[in-house]
């Protein structure tokens, strides 16, 4: 393959910043993080009234680098650069957009690979499990620090959509519009099952060392690679895999062995390798657990999402994609139904796409037109 050309982003070079927090954060598990860092990026300008702020919540493998480039030589811009920037559906000429790496992450916010000041060693297995609720609480502290009392909108896809829901429940007065995309109010058994297979791949890797592989100078690369390969299958649709790879053979004929033969094998291995080189296995474990744990109905004896969403007063745009079977349209409709039960302003669109769960990251014209139209009506 020829070397990829440097990417272009209308935002140009962006520089992440780190916020340090000294006030202890009590986590849902009961554990306490005495101090922590959150790395974040911003795009656009916060207006004088601080009323044009948008928070973008990332999904399982995402981070704070939502848009723009870190260096002119970057091969890829931030993960939602097609949606966010000057003149884009989320227009940074009008809005001040914040991307933040969640606690437990591996891109600059405090996480398992960070040094625990108490021991001088990496946290490793000592890093507490953080939940969607904890992320939202920590994001609220970042908003406090930036002087943002209320977000014009909070936006997220997949696990990011769960954070959007949690914001609307935990801080209803601090968010005016919620965009929950390709998301779900809680995972199904099938979804948890996929996550557990991914975790088992990591946990059973001999290089894992109970999560303290940093001290052993090893890395559970094989486990993380397998976890990502499995995940990747579930993010694509059968259709798109079929049309992209089919049964195409790399060498054109069977080799009667276990090396790469089918194109799909080559693709998955490449994706697994790429991910294993850039992500921390403990973070992957933690993020999948946060996904599994999230359930806003947990504290409602009637186990009813409508009751759980009762505090939410924001207007909602809920979007799903027809071929997404990991976060299927039915799951988005559960969110819609709960909002309808509470007589909230909500619009729901089901986008025809062949791209499965990954569709939320793709620049589909109708999908982007909807977000643009919705955002143009957001009053700042």
């Amino acid at each position, binding site marked *: 393959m020829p070397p990829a050309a440097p990417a272009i982003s209308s935002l140009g070079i962006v520089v992440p910043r780190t916020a340090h927090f000294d006030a202890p954060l009590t986590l849902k598990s009961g554990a306490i993080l005495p101090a922590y860092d959150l790395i974040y990026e911003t795009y656009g300008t916060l207006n004088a009234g601080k009323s044009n702020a948008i928070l973008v919540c990332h999904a399982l493998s995402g981070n704070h680098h939502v848009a723009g480039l870190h260096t002119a030589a970057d091969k890829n811009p931030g993960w939602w650069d097609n949606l966010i920037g000057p003149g884009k559906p989320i227009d940074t000429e009008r809005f001040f957009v914040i991307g933040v790496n969640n606690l437990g992450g591996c891109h600059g916010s405090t996480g398992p690979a960070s040094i625990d000041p108490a021991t001088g060693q990496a946290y490793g297995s000592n890093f507490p499990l953080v939940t969607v609720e904890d992320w939202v609480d920590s994001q609220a502290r970042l908003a406090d620090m930036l002087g943002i009392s209320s977000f014009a909108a909070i936006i997220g896809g997949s696990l990011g959509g769960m954070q959007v829901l949690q914001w609307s429940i935990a801080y209803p007065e601090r968010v005016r519009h919620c965009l929950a995309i390709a998301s779900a109010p809680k995972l199904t058994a099938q979804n948890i099952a996929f996550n557990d297979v991914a975790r088992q791949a990591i946990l059973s890797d001999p290089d894992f060392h109970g999560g303290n592989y940093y001290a052993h100078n090893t890395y559970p690369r094989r486990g993380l690679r397998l976890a990502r390969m499995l995940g990747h299958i579930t993010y694509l649709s059968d259709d798109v895999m079929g049309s992209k790879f089919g049964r195409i053979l790399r060498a054109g004929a069977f080799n009667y062995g276990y090396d790469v033969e089918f194109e799909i094998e080559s693709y998955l291995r490449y994706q697994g390798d790429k991910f294993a080189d850039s992500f921390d296995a403990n973070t992957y474990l933690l993020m999948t657990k946060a996904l599994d744990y999230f359930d806003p109905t947990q504290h409602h004896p009637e186990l009813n999402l409508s009751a759980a969403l009762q505090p939410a007063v924001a207007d909602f745009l809920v979007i799903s994609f027809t071929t997404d079977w990991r976060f299927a349209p039915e799951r988005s*409709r559960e969110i819609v139904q709960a909002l*309808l039960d509470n007589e909230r302003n909500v*619009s729901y*669109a089901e986008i025809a796409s062949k791209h499965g769960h990954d569709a939320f990251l793709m620049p589909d014209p109708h999908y982007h*037109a909807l977000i643009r139209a919705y955002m143009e009506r957001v009053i700042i």
Partner: protein
Amino acid sequence: MRHDFQTIADWIEPNAKVLDLGCGDGDLLKHLHDRRQTRGYGVELDDRHVLACVKNGVNVIQRDLEAGLAEFAAATFDYVVLSQTLQAVHHTEAILREMLRVGREGIVTFPNFGYWKNRWQVLQGTMPVSADIPYQWYDTPNVHLCTMHDFEALCAKLHIGIRERIVMTAGKRIHFLQNLTGSLAVYRFGHAA
């Protein structure tokens, strides 16, 4: 603005909660909100219409009406509107029942197939094409065209009580021989007493 919108707006009480099935661009809901301060939602299947609703600032739920209204709880709307969509619905009885499950009253408008110009075209040996039925037989979305008599007979069968009926031709109200001289019928109905 479409001729039936004015009639519908006249009927709907201020601050009512309205569900508009097959809401198109959301123009009716916007009009009702502006004139009657109503709240509510539109239901629409077509992508372009869903986008137009969002542009109009109208709450829209993308859904196929033929699959029912499962997201909407019973007795949660004052009015459920089906304007110029009834004739394109396959499950006609089911949608009328659903309207009165989720709403107190239903409002339906449809092109009256009994209108004399339609009958005349049939007599001449062609399918009717008119301002209210603007399709050729081979490209029409309409599957269940009916006359006013037909609709009222179905209402009787489903124990639906008609509360009010307005008939129009070219935007003007018609009072005599309505099933013959009216091109557009507008009904307000509820559960039969």
